[in-house]
């Protein structure tokens, strides 16, 4: 009896691992196909339309500006408060700019942007593709001779690869500005002096560190959204289930990838 139970548990673990590997493989194929259509689409008389990429870029990037502004500004102020509190123990409040600037550019800028875009656009992509699948719109594309990866996956992927790093830079700026305003009020430092400290503290490799992560996050958000959207079964309930799954998976993947990236590049 106990043996049968153990085998049952092992079987479930095995199936989950196999399903995970299958999704990873599917993601790799999707990425390869999307890049292939981007590069070769014109030669095959099925180009990835610029208008579709611009539309996606507007959804992913421009429409996210208000929420990214609020969140990155809030985090900037929060980091400044915590930084001053911690450093006051050693009487080193004046060094707060170094910690805040590096934390925002290397970590919080890309992370908060990734999480926000995953919540907004990754879930919307999963829901849209899921709805299209159950209403046979994806089948309709296929039978019209329109490759669904070229039509539905390549535009958001290209848009995310451009807009998420751009949003990350914007989040860095807003976070640093908000932190600077707080620090200037709290410590009586001028905003100009704070600006010079930031420029001294943040080097090009720090910026590239944050941007590199944001590119990886862009890939993860789109691929996780597409995989979950395409996997929808069971009508409206299935769409809801896979949309939730998409957000959870994308945010988890972002945080884990962030840790691995930091581990590999920082130690």
């Amino acid at each position, binding site marked *: 009896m106990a043996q049968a139970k153990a085998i049952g548990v092992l079987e479930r673990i095995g199936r989950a691992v196999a399903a995970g590997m299958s999704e990873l493989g599917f993601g790799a194929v999707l990425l390869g196909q999307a890049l292939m259509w981007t590069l070769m689409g014109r030669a095959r008389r099925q180009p990835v339309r610029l208008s579709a990429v611009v539309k996606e870029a507007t959804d992913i990037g421009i429409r996210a500006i208000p929420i990214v502004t609020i969140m990155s500004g809030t985090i900037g102020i929060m980091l400044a408060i915590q930084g001053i509190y911690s450093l006051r123990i050693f009487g080193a409040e004046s060094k707060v700019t170094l910690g805040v600037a590096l934390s925002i550019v290397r970590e919080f800028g890309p992370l908060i942007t990734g999480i926000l875009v995953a919540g907004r656009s990754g879930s919307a992509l999963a829901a849209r593709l899921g709805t*299209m699948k159950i*209403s*046979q*719109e994806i089948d*309709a594309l*296929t*039978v019209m*001779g*329109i490759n669904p990866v070229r039509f539905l996956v390549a535009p958001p992927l290209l848009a995310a690869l451009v807009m998420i790093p751009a949003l990350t830079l914007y989040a860095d700026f807003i976070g640093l500005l908000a932190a600077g305003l707080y620090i200037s009020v709290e410590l009586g430092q001028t905003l100009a002096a704070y600006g010079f400290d930031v420029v001294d503290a943040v080097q090009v490799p720090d910026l590239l560190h944050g941007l590199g992560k944001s590119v990886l996050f862009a890939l993860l958000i789109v691929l996780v959204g597409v995989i979950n959207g395409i996997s929808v079964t069971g009508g409206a309930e299935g769409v809801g289930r896979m949309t939730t799954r998409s957000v959870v998976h994308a945010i988890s993947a972002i945080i884990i990838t962030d840790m691995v990236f930091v581990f590999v590049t920082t130690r």
Partner: protein
Amino acid sequence: MAEPAATRRPPTAAELEGIPLDEREAVIEVENLVTHYGDRKILKDVSLAVRQGEILVIMGGSGSGKSTLLNHLLGLLKPTSGTIRMLGKDITRISEREYTEIRKKLGVAFQGGALFSSMNLLDNIMLPLYEHTDLDRTTMEIMARMKMEVVSLSGFDRLMPAELSGGMIKRAALARAIVMDPRILFCDEPSAGLDPVVAAAIDDLILSLRAATGMSVVVVTHELESAFKIADRICVLDKGAVLTIASVPEVKANPDPRIQNLLNRRTEEEVLDPEEYLRRLTGESQS
């Protein structure tokens, strides 16, 4: 050497007139098609042919395999074995790129319309032209509006799919299916869920399209009245096997009880093996 069917100019309706069905060239030939979902055999050695200018109706009860067969014809599923020759090419063996070229000569009207919810009606109908031709937008709009006129949807360019009635969705799906002037039109349950008047109008539309263009039409339906009205021949499927492919009078006269049950809307009495019955009760036998 004869030119491949896929590239040859299709005969017009006038050229086909007077030529018996059996003497016309086949645009679709299915031979010994077998397919499985897991361990279950869904299609069992299905063979059929669709001729130029013919309307073939595929009929059968729920679970008879007609939707699976249609999905195979559309290249959405790969069979376990067998061949499907579409406009002279075996679509089970050609590359996706070759099949894309054939797909440009097919039109498909899905059961639920499958209109893109983010596009208005005109953009939906224009999409195949936009993707497959180099025409300028004005020309594409004119061509799309001509098809909208054919299906009596003139003036509804800017409506979104969510604003359309069931009958309008079916007609819009037909307009999109014919916008590239296909050689073969596939219609999945074209009159299902519509009131009798609108359903009859859809049937008339399919007949008039065939008469005007000479295209071949494959219709999957379980609506008897519609099938009898439009079909040149009917293919009756039961449990994944073809029971008959014949003209409407021949199908009506067929003594096979399974066909008569379908035509007379009678449920088939199931002869159940006691052991199988026991397995079902205990949940050991799951379909």
